[in-house]
């Protein structure tokens, strides 16, 4: 199928199936802005993946792990009581929260860990904002007998002591990063530094659809199982494709994972919800597309939060998983050609949606995923009762109980005050998962 994106001509027009576009470039975004020392490893990874993706032994092993280890396919849950607040549209959740380790992260991690083994690399490193990708990586490393080192900002290790313990229980070492802002961006810098030094024995298991080519393509491919399953499930359940798909976007791996199978269905609106923090106009947010400019960060050209000198601006969000000043290059491109749209959901809107899903459906979502839920409430009101909305529930909220309890005033001594509504978050208590 060939399509020209509506309303676009000239250099931004795209012909041919969108789903067939792989890196290094997505329009003017992507690429490989790295030290020369890493190029050989990136080329090796690219070669290895090109062989693996068509090797039935590799794809068969990954499918077996999905089925027998992480619990795929994940189910689709319709949420009618929640949907009453979404203009009466039908809302269906893709339950990535039910995967082993509690989020979509395991999909990518299992695939990349198999690639590491295939390349003969017995050591994997990863960055993590505060836990989910780090825990997933530690899990896969334990499963496959790999040495594992996770880089985590010092601020995050302190606030997320339990996730640090979780990774250590799984046999991983956790390095507390004291450079820069001491959060996810700096953990990624430090992981890159380790990789430059140990690249011949080490695979850098990047957790999102960012970084230098081929990472944005590889991570997307390992996540697109989400959309492939969801497409078949919703056709079977509803009898047609959804009108809109909502997903949260930090780096954007869960969003691309669910969008990809629908890229060439022009009737399906693809909407990514970025973390608006205190509000995009306050400057305290993590909405790279809505509030940033194209630039180069962590090996690729994409929208980033930066000042007029090109220095990275620190991001802010109640959700650590979305608290990143960049976004995957394919999202920047989908935004630019108009195939997907990106809106901001601020902290308070996300937390309201978090509570609503808890109370109407008995599902505690990750705060990251709650941005997509808040978006679905907005989109549902636009669509009305005939609308069908698919939401990627990318992770579960067990890890967020402490943050949510503080937000809603449910800590000891504050019982029964949950209906008082949102309170100011405790500064710095908010880093938990990267999406």
């Amino acid at each position: 199928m060939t399509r020209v994106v509506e309303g676009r001509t000239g250099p931004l027009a795209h012909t041919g199936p969108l789903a067939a576009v792989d890196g290094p470039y997505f329009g003017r975004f992507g690429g490989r802005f790295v030290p020369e020392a890493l190029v050989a490893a990136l080329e090796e990874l690219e070669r290895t993946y090109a062989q693996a993706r068509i090797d039935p032994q590799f794809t068969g092993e990954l499918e077996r792990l999905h089925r027998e280890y992480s619990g795929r396919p994940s189910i689709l849950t319709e949420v009618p009581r929640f949907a009453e607040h979404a203009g009466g549209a039908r809302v269906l959740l893709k339950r990535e929260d039910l995967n082993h380790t509690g989020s979509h992260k395991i999909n990518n991690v299992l695939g990349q860990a198999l690639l590491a083994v295939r390349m003969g690399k017995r050591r994997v490193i990863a960055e993590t904002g505060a836990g989910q990708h780090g825990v997933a990586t530690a899990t896969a490393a334990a499963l496959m007998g790999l040495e594992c080192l996770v880089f985590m900002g010092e601020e995050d290790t302190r606030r997320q002591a339990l996730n640090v313990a979780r990774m250590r229980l799984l046999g991983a070492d956790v390095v507390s990063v004291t450079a820069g802002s001491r959060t996810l961006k700096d953990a990624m810098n430090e992981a890159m530094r380790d990789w430059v030094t140990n690249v011949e024995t080490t695979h850098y298991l990047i957790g999102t659809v960012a970084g230098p080519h081929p990472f944005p393509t590889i991570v997307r491919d390992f996540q697109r199982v989400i959309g492939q399953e969801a497409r078949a499930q919703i056709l079977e359940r509803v009898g047609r494709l959804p009108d809109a798909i909502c997903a949260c976007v930090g780096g954007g791996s869960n969003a691309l994972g669910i969008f990809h199978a629908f890229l060439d269905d022009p009737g399906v609106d693809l909407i990514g919800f970025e973390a608006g923090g205190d509000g995009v106009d306050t400057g305290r947010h993590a909405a790279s597309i809505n509030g940033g400019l194209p630039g180069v960060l962590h090996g690729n050209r994409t929208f980033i939060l930066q000042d007029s000198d090109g220095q990275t601006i620190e991001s802010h969000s109640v959700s650590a998983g979305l608290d990143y000043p960049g976004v995957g290059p394919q999202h920047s491109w989908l935004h630019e050609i108009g195939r997907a749209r990106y809106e901001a959901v601020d902290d308070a809107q996300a937390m309201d949606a978090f509570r609503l899903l808890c109370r109407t459906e008995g599902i505690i979502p990750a705060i990251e995923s709650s941005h997509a839920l808040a978006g679905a409430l907005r989109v549902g009101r636009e669509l009305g009762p005939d609308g069908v909305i698919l939401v990627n529930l990318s992770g579960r909220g067990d890890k967020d109980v402490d943050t949510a309890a503080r937000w809603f005033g449910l800590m000891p001594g504050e019982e029964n005050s949950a209906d008082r509504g949102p309170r100011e978050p405790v500064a710095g208590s908010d880093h938990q998962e990267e999406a």
Partner: protein
Amino acid sequence: MNPSDRPGPEGVEDVLRRAAEEGRAALIGYLPVGFPDVPASIEAMKALVAGGVDLVEIGIPYSDPLMDGPVIQHAAEVALRGGTRTADVLTAVRAVREAGAPALVMTYWNIVDRYGVDRFAQDLAAAGGAGLITPDLIPDEGADWIEAAQRHGLDRVFLVAPSSTDERLRSTTAACTGFVYAASTMGVTGARASVGPRAHELVERTRKVCDLPVCVGLGVSTGEQAAQVAGYADGVIVGSAFVKALSSGPDLAAGLLAVRALAEELALGVRRGVEQ
């Protein structure tokens, strides 16, 4: 216009040629602009030249310096906290030129990208700068910069690494002018106990595919190491050790003396040149 055709003061290749004629390696010293503040960093660059550095590499501080070890990371943080701006590097370039050495700017790519590649090249050339060293820009992504460098008569120094394949050594060096920057080890900037054997091997492999001078950086901090590297390379690049020296004393004056003393020690080292 080719950089080497540029009239006026000595360019990068002239300096390297002159050093070769003297039977020694050139000494290249790195300092970031803005550490500990802009005027002091410029004084320190002059101390480099006074101490015998042939060519100065001026770093632009960046928020995410992923090729740098702790010493230069810290300097960049201090510089940015102190309000250092991209344009300050042009002031430093002018000062180094006046002190009598060619000035190359070392920068992470997003700084130039945001400034505007052509505009940056134009302003750098107008300030008397010799060119750019780009640690996170490989020629594959550098078409705009290569074009701007040609237009404004600037050198473009790309890096090669021990992990570079022969094919990449060929394509990367073909895009370089001035010299080729050979990273001595796999890793980030910072002093090391020894400069590994892979540096020598890399210089030999690079020489087989290009005629440009090959200078070695990463990990050199003492006169002895400089002499060792000078035994096989055309230039010796020292960075973190100068940054450390600058902040070693109780005050700026002591730091400047330490920078000059280290430059003198290294300048002797590159003249000693131990045959390997």
